[in-house]
């Protein structure tokens, strides 16, 4: 028996359950809706940093003892600044402290006249004294742990202590040091002295020098050693630029001469950027990028892009790890720029043109020192300078290419490699794959839907519709596998047969229909609505005939080898896994989607419309074309849109049935790389937070928006249609 107390509590319990349920349902509903929104916002959150503008800001200013600063640098981690003074004093400044101060000071023991960092190693410096003697100095920042505290004690060494190289009287010099070989180029006006040291080891003197002198045809005042010590780049004030091949110094060869400024012009600033293929040459407020490229006529310098500034430039500071730079103008403003993307990223006043500047190796800090000891540290936020909207979609002239191109090439084994992130080849591939798939699927699915909904016997329709719809559930990995490993070899071996099917099938079907119409009407009437089944055997035999005829057609029309014929006659090369295979396989994946929705739309056309038309004397075909299809056309349109959405985002079929090469070629016999396949291939290998990673997220976002747009259009159209059917 229920006690009175329990009875009294019951309504309260019931209303409690009621409201708890309401909250849980509302919470769960909100959670699901939130999760859906989260996808969109998370993708956006990952992509956003790419489009956040770069910035350059003062972090701190501080005082150091006044001195004649010959060179300034920042350590790899950004913790230390390095100041080389004319007195030979070298100071390490602890930058990460609230009020930076000198943490250690030592002296190289001679007065320093000039300093030039070695290439391509960082932390090595060539110091030249007043007599023109060059010594190499290196700074290192060893990390140790004392009482579990990370301690860095910067150290100074003269790695080749006994070696004093003579650069007296030189207008300019460059010292290249990598993997046991050092190359010193000393420019003395109209000739260059090139000295190569072999078997170079730190702690030992530079040994086995081999010197050569290269006589020049004009007077130059700047010299750079090119990539891997193979080139010599020379420039003079009047803008004459020369390139020598010094792979074998004794047989140095002039490769190219170019005039980089107008006859009466003057070079104000010039610097090489990372990789040393490119020079930035400034004249007034104009900065131009020149690089070496090779074509059938040999090497030449090409002016590939320019930057313009309001004030004349006084200094170019190249980035260490990227192809970016800071251009300093006469007003003391630093301009952050990036060559490949042709972007001017940020500007900020940093000091006086006469100050000394240093950019940290990671490009995140800029240190400035004035002669009076005033120092300023700037932070640079510039994570993705290589990516701009135009860099993603426009043609870009990369170093070493002879023309601007659209190129997607995200990684390579080579260190000098610059990733190329043009989305055009991927967009092209995506649309190409979708186009060929739709070319095959749309007519097949729509025609199939028309027949099934309008002509087919109901008992057959009951089987055919779910039968075709089951195919929508077929895993695409299975379709992709069949396309790549079964269909592609068959098509490759029987290309002419496959092409002849396209010809034989319509003609054969017309013939079949004609013959059918000759049969007695009493006989044929029984098969009304079963044509779909009647046609199966003829179609299979036609395909068989086409395959039987294939080899003969091959001999007749294609000289025994259709692939060679296409290449020679039409210039179409043939990949085994190509757009034709993808079109067929992905088309097949899309057919059930389009078929199902279009069939619903046609089948749903109100019966009285059809009956009315027939009653007025129209034939079934006329009724179909003039009444049914017209009414159902929005539904068929939305079916095609949804099919297109599916074709655009399909991954596995494209991944397995194409070679995944990001090329831009409409040729049906070549492959492509789509957004989706590209993500599947590259994302697992991509470094989190890198430009590459964010661009892959961007492509996911593009896919998301693209398909979402297609589907929304389709859905809206479908809802309108439903309302219209309702009103009819």
């Amino acid at each position, binding site marked *: 028996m229920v006690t009175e107390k329990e009875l009294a509590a019951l309504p309260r319990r019931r209303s409690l*359950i*009621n409201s708890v349920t*309401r909250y849980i*349902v509302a919470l*769960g*509903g*909100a*959670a*699901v*809706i939130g*999760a*859906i929104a989260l*996808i969109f916002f*998370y*993708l956006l959150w990952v992509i956003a940093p790419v489009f956040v503008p770069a910035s350059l800001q003062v972090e701190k200013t501080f005082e150091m003892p006044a001195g004649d600063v010959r060179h300034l640098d920042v350590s790899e981690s950004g913790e230390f600044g390095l100041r080389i003074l004319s007195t030979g004093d070298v100071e390490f400044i602890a930058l990460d402290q609230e009020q930076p101060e000198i943490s250690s000071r030592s002296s190289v023991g001679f007065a320093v006249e000039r300093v030039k960092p070695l290439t391509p190693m960082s932390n090595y410096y060539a110091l030249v004294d007043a007599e023109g003697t060059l010594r190499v100095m290196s700074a290192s920042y060893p990390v140790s742990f004392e009482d579990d505290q990370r301690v860095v004690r910067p150290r100074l060494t003269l790695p080749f202590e006994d070696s004093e190289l003579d650069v007296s009287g030189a207008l300019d010099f460059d010292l290249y040091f990598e993997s046991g070989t050092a190359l010193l180029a000393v420019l003395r006006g109209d000739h260059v002295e090139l000295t190569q040291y072999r078997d170079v080891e730190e702690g030992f003197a530079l040994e086995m020098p081999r010197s050569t002198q290269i006589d020049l045809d004009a007077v130059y005042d700047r010299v750079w050693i090119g990539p891997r010590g193979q080139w010599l780049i020379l420039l003079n004030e009047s803008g004459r630029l020369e390139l020598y091949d010094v792979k074998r110094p004794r047989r140095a060869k002039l490769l190219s001469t170019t005039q980089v400024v107008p006859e009466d012009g003057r070079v104000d600033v010039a610097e090489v950027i990372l990789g040393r293929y490119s020079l930035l040459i400034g004249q007034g407020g104009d900065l131009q990028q020149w690089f070496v490229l090779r074509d059938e006529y040999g090497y030449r310098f090409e002016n590939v892009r320019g930057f313009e500034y309001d004030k004349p430039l006084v200094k170019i500071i190249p980035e260490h790890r990227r192809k970016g730079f800071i251009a300093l103008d006469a007003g003391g403003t630093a301009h952050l720029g990036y060559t490949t993307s042709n972007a001017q990223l940020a500007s900020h006043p940093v000091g006086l043109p006469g100050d000394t500047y240093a950019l940290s190796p990671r490009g995140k800090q800029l240190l400035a020192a004035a002669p009076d000891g005033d120092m300023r540290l700037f932070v640079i936020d510039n994570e993705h300078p290589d990516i701009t909207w135009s860099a993603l979609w426009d043609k870009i002239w990369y170093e070493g290419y002879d023309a601007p191109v659209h190129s997607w090439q995200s990684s390579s084994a080579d260190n000098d490699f610059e990733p190329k992130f043009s989305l055009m080849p991927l967009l092209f591939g995506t649309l190409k794959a979708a186009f060929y798939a739709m070319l095959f699927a749309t*007519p097949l699915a729509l*025609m*199939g839907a028309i*027949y099934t909904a309008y002509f087919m016997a109901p008992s057959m329709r009951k089987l055919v519709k779910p039968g*075709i719809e*089951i*195919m929508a*559930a*077929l*895993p695409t*990995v*299975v379709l992709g*596998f069949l396309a790549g*490993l*079964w269909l592609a070899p068959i098509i490759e*071996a029987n290309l002419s047969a496959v092409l002849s099917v396209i010809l034989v099938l319509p003609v054969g*079907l017309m013939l079949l*229909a004609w013959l059918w*119409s*000759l049969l007695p*009407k009493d006989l044929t009437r029984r098969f009304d609505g079963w044509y779909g*089944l009647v*046609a*199966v055997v003829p179609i299979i035999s036609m395909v068989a005939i086409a395959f039987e005829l294939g080899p003969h057609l091959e*001999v007749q029309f294609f000289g025994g*080898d259709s692939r060679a014929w296409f290449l020679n006659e039409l210039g179409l090369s043939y990949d085994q896994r190509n757009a034709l295979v993808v079109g067929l396989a992905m088309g097949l994946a899309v*057919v059930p989607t389009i078929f199902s929705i279009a069939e619903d739309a046609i089948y749903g056309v109100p019966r009285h419309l059809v009956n009315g038309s027939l009653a007025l004397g129209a*034939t*079934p*075909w006329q009724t*179909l074309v003039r009444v049914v299809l017209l009414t159902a056309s929005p539904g068929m349109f939305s079916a095609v849109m949804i099919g297109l959405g599916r074709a655009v*985002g399909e*991954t*596995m079929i494209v991944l*397995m049935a194409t070679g995944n090469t990001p090329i831009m070629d409409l040729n049906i016999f070549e492959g492509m790389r789509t957004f*989706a396949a590209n*993500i599947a291939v590259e994302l*697992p290998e991509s470094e989190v937070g890198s430009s590459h990673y964010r661009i*892959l997220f961007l492509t996911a976002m593009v*896919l*998301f928006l693209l*398909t*979402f747009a297609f*589907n*929304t259009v389709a859905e809206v159209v479908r809802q309108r249609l439903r309302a219209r059917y309702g009103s009819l």
Partner: protein
Amino acid sequence: MLSHNAGGVRSWFASGEPWVWMNAAAVALSIIAVVGLLGLIAVRGLAHFWPADVLEVTYQDRTGQRVTLGERVESEFIPIERYAEASVREDDDRAAGLDVVERTLYKVGNRRATPPDFMWIYSHDIVGTATPESVFVLERTEWGNAYGYLESLTDDGVVVATGADAAAAFLQRMDAATELREEIAALEGGELNRINYGLEQLRLEERRLVIEGRDTAAALADIDAQRQVLNADYQVAEEALRQLHGALARSSVTLRLAEGRTIDVKLSEIVRAWQPNLMSVLDKLGHYGASVALFLTDNPREANTEGGIFPAIFGTVLMVMLMSILVTPFGVIAAIYLREYARQGTFVRLIRIAVNNLAGVPSIVYGVFGLGFFVYFIGGTLDELFYPEALPSPTFGTPGLVWASLTLALLTVPVVVVSTEEGLTRIPRSLREGSMALGATKAETLFRVILPMASPSILTGVILAIARAAGEVAPLMLVGVVKLAPTLPLDGNFPFIHLERKFMHLGFHIYDVGFQSPNVEAARPLVFATALLLVLIIVGLNLTAIMLRNRLEQRYRGVES
């Protein structure tokens, strides 16, 4: 429809008859494609397990007459031009006068002794074929099948049987060897797995103590003691394993290959042995069944190109189960919210369209989200908070089972929502009103009236979601599948289900073996078999859903009338 008359072709075209035929042809083509695809997969997948007769083919070669043993795989005709290109013989006039030549692919096995294991032989080269009765097929753990005649059986280096006696003795030994192998597998998968897992846990425990500053001498000594125990266990288990391996390696057989060479094969390397040419159809059926069973229950071998697919089946099923546990409540609650609780208006309509459209968003997009948000963001945070001892090697901050299930749950949530909503819409308003009129609260109406009535459509939705999830591969490639998982995500070690582990998956298995394996020719039949299994599962699930939906429709017809 109009038949043609003397009016001729023009009026025939005007009647639309040819176009009707074209439309019918489209249906026919689709039917052919569906039936053809399923048939192709079924035939290729099922044929793989049939113990075909082994033929002894005598054929002409550049070097003279040769013999080989092998199973016939397929025949084809190729144009004489391609034959001429491929032919290495200058003086080849045997194919003269032919337009096409026939060639047959034989699986000749013996990959180690006489590579490669597949060989094309031209029909005009064949001198004769025979089906020798005594020929043996040995399925080996490495190097694929061996075909040959049994010469002798050796125990510990001593020949114990030769000729006809050897066969019987060998098959008897094989039974014993199979038992030994099972014992070894049990030991490796059970005891040794437990010990290794325990040792790893102790190592992590020790690091955790150090990190948290609780590494007192007592605690460390305790860990050391546990480690001693485990190490002692390990010694015992290893000794047992060594003895089993020794017993297994005792016997070997000598096999004479087609051309007279002999090879020795240890019993430990043989998975199964049979004599196909001696088997009756019934025997073959039995063997066929055993092969299928082995395929379903065995681990893969030889870079997944041989052996079974058990871990892939297991991984797929477990992932899908986890996914349905996640997706069902959320999908159903969202649908109930949208249909029963939320105020119907523009906002809800927009959300409904958005949910609908999400079903059409490419699955790879979900994979990207799963990798970025679940794996790197949530997983990375979990690692920092709860598993600092394992860093820098990630625990949850790397693709794994739980992230794959979550990602697929998100992917399939629209399917469940749409299906459940459909079911809720069909429930007549009068029923709700009736329930309320009798004094039931809204929650009581929901639990007692609406949910029971909507349950078939909820089930339909879940089944469709499972079918979709089982066939998805693209997002899984980003969030958790691997080509070969060393351990199953479910085992005897606490907490039994290891959500962070990577797993194998049927769909990915198809992609991996079909496209990444070194010996595609040998792996192809296996891929067809895997594809067949996957297709069967998915088609089966879909048919179930369709049947449920049909039954549902009938049921409501009753309610509405």
